[in-house]
């Protein structure tokens, strides 16, 4: 499934300053193609996370449309959009994103539990994802017992478990060492290879080696689009 942004822009109201609104994202057109890993880099505050949240259906654009396949995300009702996100979009946001009353395995299985009941094969897949991310031994631990890097990998496993058609990752390797960073990038690349449209926002320079398309964000403007 492709994710297409048409003339999408985002402005935030601002109480102070000369203007009463702040443009976080200049109008842009962008397509995340299925089977490709798109990498967006840029300085802090350049609008990368805003773009990611717009694509994830979490932030309504000021103008323009975002289509996932043929579905206009922001024309859906809250419930329809939520169900759509649950079944088609995987997200890895910044920071710690664990539900602390659940174990690591339960956290990973949570997306499947929201609107259904995971089966044994889902649990097997969750365990194999944890294995690949080198945290299989922590499956039954509480998130409070995990380090920052381990929590991050748990969030990656959770986003990948429902086999999303679109994967949006915001600094997924922020707390990871070099070895684990490599593992995660390889996993992203593999996910794209399986037909998923993957967008990765990162600071890591080594990520460029994995990119199918590479963009740079500056002051809300998207530049680049280098195809490799």
């Amino acid at each position, binding site marked *: 499934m492709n994710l297409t942004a048409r003339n999408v822009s985002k402005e935030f109201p601002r109480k102070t300053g000369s203007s009463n609104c702040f443009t976080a994202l200049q109008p842009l057109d962008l397509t995340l193609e299925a089977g490709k890993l798109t990498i967006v880099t840029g*300085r*802090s*505050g*350049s*609008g*990368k*996370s*805003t773009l*990611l*949240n717009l694509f*994830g259906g*979490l*932030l309504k654009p000021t103008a323009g449309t975002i289509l996932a396949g043929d579905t206009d995300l922001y024309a859906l009702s*809250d*419930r329809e959009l*939520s*169900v*759509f*996100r*649950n*079944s088609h979009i995987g*997200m890895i*946001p*910044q*920071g*710690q*994103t*664990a*539900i*602390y*009353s*659940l174990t690591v395995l*339960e956290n990973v299985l*949570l*997306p499947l*539990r*929201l*609107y259904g009941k995971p089966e044994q094969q889902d649990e097997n897949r969750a365990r194999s994802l944890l294995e690949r991310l080198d945290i299989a031994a922590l499956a039954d631990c509480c998130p409070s017992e995990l380090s920052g890097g381990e929590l991050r990998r748990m969030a990656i496993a*959770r986003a990948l478990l429902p086999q999303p058609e679109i994967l949006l990752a*915001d*600094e997924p390797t922020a707390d990871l060492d070099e070895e684990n960073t490599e593992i995660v990038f390889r996993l992203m690349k593999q996910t794209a290879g399986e037909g998923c449209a993957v967008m990765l*926002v990162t*600071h890591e320079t080594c990520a460029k080696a994995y990119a199918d398309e590479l963009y740079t964000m500056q002051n809300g403007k998207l530049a680049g689009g280098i195809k490799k």
Partner: protein
Amino acid sequence: MNLAYRNCKGKPVRTTILILLTALLSLAVCGGTLLVSGLQKGLGSLEARLGADIMVVPYEAKTKSNLESIVLQGNPGYFYMDKSRFEKIAGLDGIGQISAQFYLASTSSGCCSIPVQIIGFDPATDFTVTPWLKRSFTGNLEDGDIIVGNDLNAFPGDTLTFYGIDCHVAAKLDKTGTYYDSAVFTNIGTIQKLIRSSLDRGMNDFSRIDPEKVVSAVLINAAEGYSPEEVMNDINIHVKKVKAVQTKEMISGISSSLKGTSDVIGVLIGAVWFLGLIILLLAYSISVGGRKREFAVLRMIGASQGKLASVIMQEAMLCGILGALAGTGISLLGMMTFRTAIGEAIGLPFLLPDALQTALLALFSLAAVLLTGTAAAAFSAYRISRIDTALILRGDNG
């Protein structure tokens, strides 16, 4: 795995505090409601038990204080006046129903470690005791038979001994919440025998009386066309050495103090309920506010606004049901078992409502507390369902 249940289980301190708060709230609401209705029922019962417009007692009884101590507080006591006064009163205008009563207090010996009030009445003319007795006893009260109040630990078929005379318990009264509960009732023949025996044993303060020529009190209902006040004044003017009082006036003191007590309890219930609502509102607000990020994560993985709200509402229902059940249960258990001690402590007629009414009151307070808890949580649920997920999940480099 239910997320709401796991959230409650995962944070035992938070959950315990919420359950305790709800339990305290329902304890206050259920206990207070039962207390107020118990007082109201007690007063109603007392009014019904008095059953006469006017009560005439010998002047020496110092009327109000002595009389109220017997009739309202159930303290055993006795006083007598010459029977001729009864006949004189009966001859006055405006007397509708009239019946005499005889009082005696048992000594601490025999059945009971504390004195018991013995009340003799004339079944032929009585109109105050009999209607109540009929509920538990339909037979004829033979000589030597007694009917015991509900607080006495004696049962039909038992024998109680007063002043050396064996009395056969014919029936036990239902609970009234008034002086009836600790009294013993019998007919004129029996009480005259008992008075005689108390005199013979030198255990009666009135040593020079003839039991057959005295009465203790005269109960009167005014005839149609006469007001009780007129009749009372008439008696006070025309019959010497007696004091007539209107029973309505007698219980006016008690009913106003009862109203005062009920009002205070009512205000307290209201205050506790309001305070409980505010505290629960804050508690849920803090509990949910501290987990904003978790709720944003749920939103990110596809939970709708409704789903998010339902997680919070389920948590609130879980804590609410447990707390309300515990609080209501404890207050029911406490009120039922300590009802006598509570009545004694308040010093007012106290009669708990019957089982059905009590169950309804308990259900009502359970529902009220549950509603309060969920209303408090609903506010947090509404707020959290509208959180700006993107803002919460955003870092500072975007």
